[in-house]
């Protein structure tokens, strides 16, 4: 299937937004925890672009980082990210965008409560895939010995999880707004095009 230029550019746009969202930490601080906006941008990408295009745009994000642009958190990038234990989170964004997109596509009208539900499914997927990957990455790449346990990995993720829950609530509130903006925007575009 071939995309229209505007769809290609939307996907690229969200890939770029991910790169920025990963590194705006110096601007936004809530409760002392520096913030990366990656998980919520992945959720929004799924909601606004739909499942296929959303997942595509997250794949582009991963690829742009792998070819060496410093778009991953902490301005890192390059093939070395492949051997980093946190690479699972980058992969999880693809799944998050796809699933969120599918769930949004199913409903005609999105109410805030449904947006909440969808956004939290997205966040849960994000952490499930990311943290499990991290665990297995430590097992395989670093050959972690027996003293290293599954709960240890989850404990590390507890602090960022709290911040992401707050962000996800905010995002869930914004999703209906953003969706309205998109429909409005598309109508406007059609008028100017005709």
């Amino acid at each position, binding site marked *: *299937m071939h995309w229209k*230029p*505007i769809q*290609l*550019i*939307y*996907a*690229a*746009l969200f*890939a*770029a937004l991910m*790169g*920025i969202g990963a590194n*705006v930490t*110096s*601007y*936004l*601080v*809530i*409760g002392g925890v520096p913030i990366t906006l990656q998980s919520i941008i992945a959720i*929004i990408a799924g909601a*606004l672009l739909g499942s296929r295009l959303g997942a595509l*745009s997250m794949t*582009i994000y991963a*690829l*742009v980082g792998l*070819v*060496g*642009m*410093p*778009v991953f958190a*902490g*301005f*890192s*990038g*390059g*093939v*070395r990210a*492949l*051997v980093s*234990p946190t690479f699972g989170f980058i992969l999880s964004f693809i799944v998050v965008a796809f699933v969120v997109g599918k769930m949004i596509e199913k409903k005609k009208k999105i109410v805030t409560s449904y947006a909440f539900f969808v956004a939290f499914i997205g966040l849960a997927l994000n952490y499930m895939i990311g943290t499990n990957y991290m665990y297995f990455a430590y097992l395989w*790449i*670093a*050959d*972690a*010995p*027996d*003293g*290293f346990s599954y709960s240890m990995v989850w404990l590390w993720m507890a602090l960022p999880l709290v911040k992401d829950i*707050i962000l996800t609530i*905010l*995002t869930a*509130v*914004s999703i209906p*707004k*953003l969706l309205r*903006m*998109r429909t409005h*925007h598309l109508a406007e*575009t059609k008028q100017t095009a005709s």
Partner: protein
Amino acid sequence: MFEHVIIGQYLPGQSVLHRMDARAKLLCLFFLLIIIFMTNDWIGYGSVWVGTLIMFFLSGVSFRYMRKGMIPILILIAFTFLLHAFFTKEGTILLSLGAFSVYSGGLQEGTFIAMRLFLLVWMTSLFTLTTSPIDLTDALEQIFRPLERFGISPHEIAFMMSIAIRFIPTLLQETEKVLKAQVARGADFTKGSLKDRSQAFISLLVPLFVRSFRRAEELAYAMEARGYHGGVGRTKLRKLTWRRRDTAACLVVFCFGMICMFLRQ
């Protein structure tokens, strides 16, 4: 603070590694990663060290620059080393500290794994430092060509990657503009109650998306006006050329891997 985003990690240069074809480098890197993961004894690690050092000298990257890039990863490496040193219970006891005791097997295992991580990061960094993202995107476009059969267009993927790279600085400016505009209207991102800050956050998010979408549309119109129609029959500004020395480099790395395998037994 965002200056290095635009440049990326690529260091322009004229060294042997810089002039190699990006596809050849990717292939060599693939071989080298396999070699590192297969290595499990002192001789193996020794030869991989020698190989990496040779590549480092060929790359022309300064030692100081390399050191700066490696420091962040040292924490992970040290952590891994300690994990192994304390938890692997093999060989003879060298040292006892209360409940913990350090075994000789643990020290050796820790050193191996630390070296493996270090070499992995070093090698992949060398690759990234000597290959420009644009070259690599072009290389990926060719490598992904078999995917066309599954309905994925490699041209479109490469196109989106270049647009995304191009969009990053633009969107950063947009973010800063929206931020300043909202601060001018009284939004405060750094203090206030959770509710106030949440509102400030939404007031940043929504306009940012509106502006980004507008940017995207402008670009799409410009492309359609110029008759863009995907990868078919499109000519290229930059062309990758596979030279004889690229074949030679791949062969050298391949033979190196074979020797390592041989020494392993």
